[in-house]
């Protein structure tokens, strides 16, 4: 029995690897997605982590002691990049040309408390930046008006920030490496279902059953190769993240405090993606249909599951929807390891959801599949 199983696995691997589209689909596609999307999103992530400097035109109409101090405080703040107004540019022209995000005017009469500081922002500026700048200008103005040297130092006894760095928002590689690996793992459904349906169409599958070979051996001979390829896919993508991407991107990719937890997660995620492949193979009636079904389902699961957009950026409704996707649970389990240094017992519930998904897929496929 073992020899027959070995031979069927060998046959499946040969058939799979000789298909021209398999290697690009299963290995080059996720590697390219990790590479290009991490590079493309690097700027966005830099803003999220380091805080983008806002370009401000600061104009002071009455150089008195208070207004000069306020001008200096604003201009020297680490979040502010002071820019000059090109001759003849109105505020609208400044914003349209992208030369400034906002204009701060310290008006005549500020010294006497007769006129407030005026702020005007580029209308398309991110609301978060707008509100952060408004808060910054307010606190600096309060310092100057009330004669306080450093309001942050003064309030440090009352407010303490204890957020661990990078613990809630994944870096571009932390998000992309597991995300696109999972995405590619679910794409295994395409060659798996096409192979199964082609063998049914050309009669080779039925021919196997004319020999004294058990149906369980044939099933295992079909499943094991794809399961192994899933494991290889993840290992290779991890290598890309750890060994290749640091040469191209400013963000490090660390495996977290418990890298061995990746093993059970990957074993279970591979079971879920193989189960999905079996379900597609059992449901579709022709190879062309299975290919479309597998690709569409995998892309939708990736969209909803937080692979393409991190769930932390999603609205509440979408975050709830994300939980319907098995990719979400696999992705979150990986992020637990990479970012949250989670203990195994806090990952287990996510693995249980993935196992449930795999079991349901195998069960439905078992009921639907027609071998002959």
């Amino acid at each position: 029995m073992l020899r027959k199983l070995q031979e069927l696995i060998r046959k499946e691997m040969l058939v799979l690897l000789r298909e021209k589209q398999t290697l690009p689909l299963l290995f080059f596609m996720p590697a390219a997605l990790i590479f290009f999307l991490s590079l493309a999103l690097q700027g966005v992530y830099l803003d999220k982590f380091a805080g983008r400097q806002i370009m401000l035109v600061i104009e002071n109409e009455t150089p008195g002691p208070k207004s000069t101090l306020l001008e200096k405080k604003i201009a020297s703040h680490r979040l502010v990049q002071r820019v000059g107004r090109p001759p003849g540019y109105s505020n609208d022209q400044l914003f349209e040309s992208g030369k400034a995000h906002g204009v701060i005017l310290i008006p005549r009469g500020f010294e006497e408390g007769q006129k407030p500081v005026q702020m005007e922002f580029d209308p398309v500026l991110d609301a978060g930046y707008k509100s952060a700048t408004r808060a910054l200008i307010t606190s600096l103005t309060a310092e100057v008006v009330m004669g306080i040297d450093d309001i942050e130092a003064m309030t440090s006894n009352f407010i303490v920030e204890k957020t661990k760095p990078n613990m809630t928002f994944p870096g571009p590689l932390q998000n992309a490496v597991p995300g696109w690996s999972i995405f590619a793992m679910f794409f295994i459904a395409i060659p798996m279902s096409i192979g199964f349906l082609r063998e049914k169409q050309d009669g080779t599958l039925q021919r196997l059953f004319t020999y004294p070979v058990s149906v369980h051996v044939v099933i295992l001979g079909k499943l094991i190769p794809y399961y192994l390829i899933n494991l290889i896919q993840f290992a290779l993508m991890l290598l890309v993240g750890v060994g290749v991407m640091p040469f191209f991107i400013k963000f490090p990719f660390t495996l977290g405090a418990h890298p061995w937890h990746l093993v059970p997660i990957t074993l279970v995620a591979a079971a879920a993606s193989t189960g999905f492949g079996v379900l597609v193979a059992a449901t579709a009636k022709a190879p062309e249909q299975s290919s479309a079904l597998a690709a569409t389902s995998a892309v939708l699961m990736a969209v909803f599951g937080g692979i393409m957009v991190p769930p932390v950026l999603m609205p509440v409704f979408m975050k709830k929807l994300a939980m319907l996707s098995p990719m979400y649970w696999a992705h979150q389990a990986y992020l637990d390891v990479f970012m949250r240094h989670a203990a195994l017992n806090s990952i287990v519930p996510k693995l249980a959801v993935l196992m449930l998904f795999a079991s349901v897929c195998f069960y439905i496929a078992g009921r639907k599949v027609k071998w002959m």
Partner: protein
Amino acid sequence: MKALEISQVTFAYDQNETAGFALRDFSMVVQAGEMHALVGPNGAGKTTLMKLITGQLRGCRGDIKIYGRRSDDPVALSAIGYAPQPVSVFPSLSAWENLRVFGVMAGLADRVLKERAMAVLEATGLLPYAKKRTSTYSGGMLRRLNLAVALLHSPRLLLLDEPTVGVDPQSRNNIYETLNALNAQGVAVVLCTHIMDEAQRMCSKLTLLDRGEMIFSGEMREIPDLEKFFLEKTGRSLRDDS
């Protein structure tokens, strides 16, 4: 000795049997060393019968025995060599790799498998192309490989479903010669074909099947013109059902 004994077999694809029977009370005996033609119009039940014998279909009433063993016995399955009507080989594998897969499934040991693979490739004229992927083969080469796979494990009962359909005269001749040689060694052959001339020339026994029922069984030598006999027994109306 009976190589194949089919007794009162009834089978319907629909479990409730509302769509009619694919086979009804069908019986047939093939003796060891006999070359037996199984003929009938399209949809007569020939392929269904082949699938029942080879265990691809289950759930029939009646009995199917291969050399005295029930057809669901693994030993009985090992005695059968089956060449299905569609060429059923893996197109991205070479002939050699295909033979390896099916040889292992048949339980052949490595050394025997190599010897037998060489022998069947030689017999079917495919030895020079053994390492080429079968997707590059012509129709005739594929048909011969289909037969080579069936012969690989030295079966004692050979079931051939349309083995010469769509092949050139050279390939057809090669297949006939191979079958004659096997038959001379005592292998029982069931030849399922639409080519009446082929059935008449190759076979000593005939079973005529129509609409799932056996309508004639006897000696081929008693029939002077099989084509005429066939049309007389089954009628001249077109059979478009598969």
